[in-house]
């Protein structure tokens, strides 16, 4: 009786519950699916970079056009996002800059520009910096809802259509190139999709927490899955579970919904890290063959983001 009330309660208060739930689910599922591929390509930290860089992208778009319409801001974020990805790649091609340092240099610089723009020339514009950073799940606008329900299904459709290209180029880029898959195009397509999804989800979950929605589901699923399809399914389940549990936790403790969703996601990851059937750290290893960690693993590790 009490449980039913507790579960049904928030839905009866008003619109904000289903609006928030819808938005955050869409964003989380889109992020989870894209995140699986980023994770497998060791590009997780590019998500970090793209999410931070979207902020100056939005600021620049507003400065140039004077408009706060979603398509304008989205375009700005995508352009600046690709620009930053390009600069990361160029920098990382210098022999004395590693790719992780290149990421760190580029996105922090871009982000600093964004913060300064928002706090000086754009101080009078109606952009809430805190909202852009931390999100406001329960206060999403109609514009955000529309943006999310168009962008996320479109991105998912693209993933389904190009699934083979994405899968093969993530697993074995050289083979992919050899059988004629446009590896670079796939790479930039993926980055564009990430940027678009991130910007769509900005208002709901914010620039920094969206990073968790991208990385954590994929990382959790990798501890549990031996096949890519299964991994994607688990990542989506992780996203949905985090959204539900996080939303209710946020209402129960009267705190940030985006933050709570991320914290729940982190706890789920920790559980998988400790108790996953074959790769968990706390359970005895089953009789399967020990995997060899060859030089290749370490080299791939060091190469980090292979953009």
């Amino acid at each position: 009786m009490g449980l039913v009330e507790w579960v049904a309660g928030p839905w009866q208060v008003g619109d904000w519950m289903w609006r928030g739930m819808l938005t955050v689910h869409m964003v989380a599922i889109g992020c989870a699916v894209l995140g699986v591929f980023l994770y497998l390509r060791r590009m997780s930290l590019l998500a970090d970079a793209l999410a931070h860089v979207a902020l100056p992208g939005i600021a620049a778009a507003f400065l140039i056009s004077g408009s706060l319409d979603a398509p304008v801001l989205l375009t700005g974020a995508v352009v600046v996002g690709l620009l930053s990805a390009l600069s990361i790649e160029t920098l990382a091609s210098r022999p004395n800059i590693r790719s992780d340092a290149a990421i760190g240099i580029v996105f922090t610089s871009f982000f600093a520009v964004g913060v300064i723009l928002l706090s000086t020339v754009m101080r009078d514009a109606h952009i809430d910096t805190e909202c852009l950073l931390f999100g406001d799940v329960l206060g999403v606008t109609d514009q955000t809802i529309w943006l999310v329900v168009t962008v996320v299904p479109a991105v998912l459709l693209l993933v389904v259509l190009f699934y083979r290209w994405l899968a093969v180029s993530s697993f074995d880029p050289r083979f992919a190139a050899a059988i004629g898959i446009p590896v670079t195009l796939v790479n930039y397509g993926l980055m564009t999709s990430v940027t678009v999804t991130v910007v769509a989800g900005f208002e709901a979950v914010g620039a920094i927490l969206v990073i968790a929605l991208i990385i954590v589901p994929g990382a959790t699923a990798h501890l549990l899955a031996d096949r890519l399809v299964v991994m994607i399914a688990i990542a989506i389940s992780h996203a949905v579970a985090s959204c539900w549990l996080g939303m209710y936790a946020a209402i129960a403790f009267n705190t940030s919904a985006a933050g709570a969703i991320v914290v729940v996601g982190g706890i789920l990851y920790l559980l998988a890290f400790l108790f996953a059937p074959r790769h968990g750290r706390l359970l005895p290893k089953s009789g399967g063959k020990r995997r060899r960690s060859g030089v290749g693993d370490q080299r791939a590790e060091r190469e980090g983001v292979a953009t």
Partner: protein
Amino acid sequence: MNQPAVAVRELRLSYGEEVAVKDAKFTLPAGSLVGVVGPNGAGKSTLIKAIVGAKRPDGGEISIFGDSAEVGRRRMTYVPQRGAVDWDFPITAEEVVRQGRFKSMGLLGRFKKKERRAVEEAMEAVDITDLRHRQIGALSGGQRQRVFLARALAQGGDLFVLDEPFAGVDASTESAIMEVLRRLRDDGKTVLVVHHDLVTVPEYFDELILLNREVVACGPTEDVFTEENLRATYGGRVAIVKGEKAGG
């Protein structure tokens, strides 16, 4: 033999300042089993990358089956060095082999009977049928190499390029792989293999390329595999002692 399988002229490859291969020139007759041999850092992998299109030449020309490299590559199948692959990737052995069919099926083509048969045959040829549901990282080094060879067989083609297929592989896998490569050659395919072990060279290959930043010698193995040529390739300290391992 009509058209050569691969013809390379004045090929120059470099990484920034550093020249990896210069003025490479050779032709590979179609229907032969060819080895590429040379010391570490001789540019073997770089040369292979240029042939398969993963590295842009700084100069020179590559033609495959008499066509330009881009056209000729459609008839080529490439087995990369296994180091480039991520063993943690959630993929089973069978799924890797199925990737071999993607080129001919395109982006959205469905697996039909023909595709499934090609995958089955490829797995049988290298004897991995009972490993099909294992995750790739749960296989041994030799089994992994068999999986990648099966992928190449499933793909088919007239020119097979293998980059160090015997690295980190047990003896039984090595002979199984050689068996498959010989069968391919007997079917009229051309097989190009980057190889490390000088001892097995005369036994394995019909044709040989000796490489150390430039092509030292190229031609039928019995003509090329001489002490003089090897000394020129490896810098004078290699003696060919029968039955003992030279090279690295």
